[in-house]
């Protein structure tokens, strides 16, 4: 493969959707019937992010979308299956069929926004949003696109499956960022929220508590290494911990990396504001970090769950 020169990735737009959400008002009624709840949420957030980024006309030619969702197809599957039971399997609605595939979220966004570079959907549980963002960073760095909408969306899970999740019924929410190659953003005088400096990702086995700490250590080390700044000043830790034990392990892991590298400033830990519930949670955290950090301040945002991925991302705020 061709040698890839290192490209920097910055955030130039943010779109957030949380309940209550009027899809018809935001997206129009045309074709709405065949968009799943998750797709509606994601599309609305992408539209807001595009507007926020002030993307010029014709941006679709070099832009794409990476969506993270883990339950984005579930309600469509339930509806499709129920219709087969009720009406007969030979009479299911072929227009409803594509929505049982998670790929439809990114696919529909690409169609509606005219995104020609790529459309991808990743499904990695509670870290789906973080993993989508990291994947998008890789894709921009390897010149697959200049601009990518990346984020996550989850609709409210049907009551039939709500008890499967130990955090209870999930809320409908979606956050998408506009990730853009830095020189591209500068050339068009885009407002820049921050730079996505680096990430680390690894699997976090479910076997014991100490595995979590070790996994966070690996992910944070990877993020620091990729960020590649010799004098990185890390001001905030946006936590993914959902209880005291996880919180202590997370802090111990981050501090261990800090001591090893001896490059970080004092660590201000954010409170447990948003316990990790869905793939969207860390997206809200990043938005919060970008809003709170001062110019040139760096923060780390973690996303993890036992038995799933542990993904750690480092951002630098730009004011």
């Amino acid at each position, binding site marked *: *493969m*061709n*040698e*890839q020169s290192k490209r920097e990735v910055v955030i130039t737009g943010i779109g957030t959707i949380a309940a209550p959400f009027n899809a018809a008002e935001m997206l129009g009624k045309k074709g709405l019937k065949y968009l799943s709840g998750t797709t509606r949420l994601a599309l609305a957030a992408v539209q807001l992010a595009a507007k926020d980024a002030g993307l010029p006309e014709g941006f679709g030619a070099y832009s*794409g*979308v990476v969506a993270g969702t*883990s*339950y984005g197809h579930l309600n469509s*599957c*339930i509806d*499709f*299956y*129920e219709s*087969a039971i009720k009406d007969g*399997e*030979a009479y*299911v*609605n*072929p227009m409803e*069929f*594509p929505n*049982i*595939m*998670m*790929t*439809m979220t*990114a*696919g*529909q966004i*690409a*169609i509606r926004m005219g*995104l*020609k*570079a*790529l*459309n*991808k*959907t*990743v*499904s*990695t*549980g509670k870290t789906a949003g973080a*993993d989508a963002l990291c*994947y998008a960073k*890789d*894709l921009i760095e390897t010149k697959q696109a200049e601009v990518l909408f990346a984020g996550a969306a989850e609709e409210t899970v049907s009551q*039939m*499956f709500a*008890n*499967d999740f130990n955090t209870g019924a999930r809320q409908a929410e979606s956050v998408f960022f506009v990730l853009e190659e830095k020189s591209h953003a500068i050339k068009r005088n885009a407002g820049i929220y921050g730079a996505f400096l680096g990430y680390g*990702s*690894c*699997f976090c*086995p*479910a076997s014991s508590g100490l595995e979590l700490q070790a*996994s966070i250590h690996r992910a944070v080390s*990877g993020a620091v290494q990729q960020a590649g700044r010799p004098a990185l000043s890390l001001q905030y830790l946006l936590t993914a911990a959902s209880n005291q034990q996880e919180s202590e392990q997370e802090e111990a892991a981050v501090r261990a990396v800090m001591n090893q590298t001896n490059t970080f400033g004092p660590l201000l830990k954010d409170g447990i504001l948003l316990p990790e519930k869905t793939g969207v949670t860390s997206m809200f955290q990043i938005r919060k970090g970008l809003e709170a950090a001062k110019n040139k301040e760096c923060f780390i945002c973690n996303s993890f769950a036992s*038995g*799933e*991925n542990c993904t750690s991302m480092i951002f630098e705020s730009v004011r």
Partner: protein
Amino acid sequence: MSQRIVVTGIGVISPIGIGKEPFFNGLMQGKSGCALVKGFDTSQLKYHYGCEVSAFRSEEFLPEAFLRYGRASAFSMAAARMALADAGLEVPDFGQEQIGISIGTGLGEMQTLEHCLRQRLMAPDSLPETAPLWEGHHITRSVAELFSIKGPNMLFSTACSAGSDAIAYACMRLQSGQQTAMLAGGVEVFSQMAFWGFSRMKAVADQECRPFDAGRKGIMIGEGAGLLVLETLASAIARKAPIYGEINGWGTSSDAYHMTAPDPGPDGGMARAMRQAIRNSGIGLKDIDYICAHGTGTAANDKIETAAIKTVFGDYAYQLPVSSIKSMIGHTGGAAGALGTIASLLAINNKTIPPTINYQNPDPECDLDYVANQMRQADIRMVMNNSFAFGGNNTSLVIGKYDGGLGV
């Protein structure tokens, strides 16, 4: 830092054979995996044939504790076991953190989800034992747990290009130096909902899949898994691993056109993905010796894929052998790109091109060399493997012969 990426291990579960030798022999013999569907009742439907993997027994590959997992997880774990053994790669010795997992799927653990839905619709208050196992990402999780792999764990849900997307992702991880090896590929299992949906879309063939034939009627729904051990060349050489070939590059694109139909325009997504794969590989058009086509057997795909190949390759398209292994194994959805990659690697190493079977009547709009009905001897050095999906998701891989010794 850019790295060369090689394939050192292969694991296959397919309707025509489990394991690389039965799979390859089946392809070369033009064996069809198509039969009457046994997994569920199709009597109320218009279509009754599919390509199931009827010979698979989980207990032959998995320890007891893992037998309760869904079929997609079982396929993936079994294919991973074969691939790791083939590569001679012992995870603890190699480094648990040095290896990652990326797997693509269209519908994930759909059989398990259907089982849950059946139970819950009959008894809404009951919680079935399988509850958490229907989640798609359980597929990659189960592989990580079974082999104690601690690198990144990614599940791609990009429908029929998912396997190729997972391989492309693995290449990015390896090229960036973040991982030394990746288990990458795709999986799909037979599901009622997919069968109902494709049947109602009238996208399914009656009894046989006939890609590029004038009388083609549609896809034959299939299932299977293909997992590969991808590794940096330096790592493979250091541990004297057998090398099947290289992943030279990849390209991806989005149609932004229609949810289920491919973009027929001259600069449609298929052509852009192929062009980008060639550009990314740093090769010339005439370096490609064979195209392992997406070739689904639908009227639209085969016509538009043919046109896209001609757009990209010009007159050289008429000298390029193009074949569809879906004529034998059916459309294995998220596994298709991975199984195509494996077929391409085996074709390179065995100097034989798999045929397109069931080809009887030429279609004026599909006028390339489709390697009709018989495998062909050819010294192929570089293959383009196409995967195109619902949602206008297109990914092409360039797979090359490895000339540096240690070949298989």
